[in-house]
């Protein structure tokens, strides 16, 4: 009922030019990318996606059960477009066994923690390991410290995030779904790091 976080794709951000005749398959100019968000419950995964797809921050997001799906297309400066097909997963521990269902075949893994919550940073490290071991071999991984607007409550230093990400060859960014800080940058940076299919 009024499930705001899983409405079908009808965002104004959808960009034309995906070739509908071949079902919008990826080609060198128009990429279609499966992205999965993982991380503890409450770190703000759903809010990040809603901010990216709808441009809104709803302080009352809904609890995710299983996972919800949204998509959003962005245009890059070199006139390529990237359509992100986003799986926003449920964070509660007991849902972890379902994760492979969502990260199987994913080109991008975004692992989110809450900078005010050290436990969530530890949890993020588990997800990194799981994806390194069992995700696609060429998966692009991003580590995201969310709720960066809550500086006064910070308990995970920027340095800790950077160091961990560097050690694991990941892209790192701190975001705020609330203020929109770095949300678009997150997805743009990911897009730049994607392996491109060679033009045929």
């Amino acid at each position, binding site marked *: 009922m009024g499930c705001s976080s899983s409405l079908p794709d009808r965002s104004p951000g959808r960009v034309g030019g995906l070739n509908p005749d071949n*079902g919008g398959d990826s080609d060198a100019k128009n990429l279609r990318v499966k992205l999965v968000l993982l991380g503890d419950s409450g770190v703000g995964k759903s809010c990040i996606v809603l901010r990216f797809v709808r441009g809104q921050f709803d302080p*009352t997001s809904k609890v995710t059960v*299983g996972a919800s799906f949204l998509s959003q297309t962005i245009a890059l400066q070199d006139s390529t477009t990237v359509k992100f097909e986003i799986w926003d997963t449920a964070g509660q521990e007991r849902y972890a066994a379902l994760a492979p269902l969502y990260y199987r075949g994913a080109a991008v893994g975004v692992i989110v923690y809450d900078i005010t919550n050290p436990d969530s940073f530890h949890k993020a490290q588990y997800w990194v390991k799981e994806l390194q071991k069992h995700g696609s071999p060429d998966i692009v991984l991003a580590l995201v410290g969310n709720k960066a607007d809550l500086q006064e409550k910070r308990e995970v230093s920027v340095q800790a995030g950077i160091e961990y990400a560097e050690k694991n060859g990941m892209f790192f960014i701190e975001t705020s779904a609330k203020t929109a800080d770095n949300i678009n940058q997150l997805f743009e940076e990911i897009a730049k790091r994607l392996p491109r299919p060679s033009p045929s």
Partner: protein
Amino acid sequence: MYGTQSKRDLTLEMQSQIPILRPSIHSRRANITVKFQDLYGFTVEGNVDDANIINEVREKVREQGRVWWSLEASKGANWYLQTDVSSALKASLKFSVLVNAITLKKLIRKGIPPVLRPKVWFSLSGAAKKKSTVPDSYYNDLIIAVEGKVTPATKQIDHDLPRTFPGHPWLDTPEGHASLRRVLVGYSFRDSDVGYCQGLNYVAALLLLVMKTEEDAFWMLAVLLENVLVNDCYSSNLSGCHVEQRVFKDLLKKKCPSINAHLESLEFDVSLVATEWFLCLFSKSLPSETTLRVWDVLFYEGAKVLFNVALAIFKMKEEELLMAHHVGDVINVIQNTTHHLFDPDDLLTVAFDKFDKLGFMTSTNISKERKKQEPAVMAELDQRLRRLNSSNLEVDS
């Protein structure tokens, strides 16, 4: 005592608001999107057709109410409470009981009028019986005993209260949160294997809206988890939920072979959408009255109903699904469908007429299928656990 009085007032208030269409109209592409409140106070977004359908459904609900009243008049009040076929069969079979049972099954599939729901659900689900086996003060005692205790379950519940149907005129108030909290926290102590599982927040919230009292909502939750649904549906490894997913996949293959083959070719795993259905009992996907119509049948006929409904959602959109080229398209078709199923009969007709005929969808058959899937699920969960443990060891050393 637990704020039930004012909740009752709210229910009345909401019902008097029923025919009001909210005037906040804005255009989206060619369609006009209208926002309105449905029978249970949820804000719904849809086009003008949807609004009309909701009004028709309201009329049908009233009609259905008249049918129930006239049956009460002819068969006596509470006739439907004495229709337990199995006990009637054990005792010397009374013809009238059998007739009533058949009438009742048909009647329930057509919907229980909202005013009768609390009473009918409470007795037919077995909640009344469950409650009667413990002292009257059980719920109050439980709530008092657990007050102020902090566990991982209570922490998660506190995070989830404002994220359960946000914006609902009663559920999303301090009073609504407090009520939902007591039910969920109370249950987490009643069954510590389950504790609290995300998804239950939606189920309990809807139960609170339907049942007249918080205590009855609690017992409905208890009977649901302990008797109606598959075992361990919400327990710490969700094993029951995994079992249901496998049973469902098998059913889809048997009942909708072409859809299944197509989805397989797209590498679309039906669990991607069905997990949420089976854990929230459709409350997060279907409009409220449609969800409650599913629950009407669920509480009388059992968990097999969830399979009927899940199959029906796929079946209804067979043509569109066969044209989908991508996982994303499939999800969009399914979500578009579920969000706009404002007429419960559209769904339930397919669910019960199509999939009941072959006689496969009996509770006994579902139990057999579950038994078959259990070992594989256990092996899978076990393997995952071992894998995780071994990588933990690497981290520690």
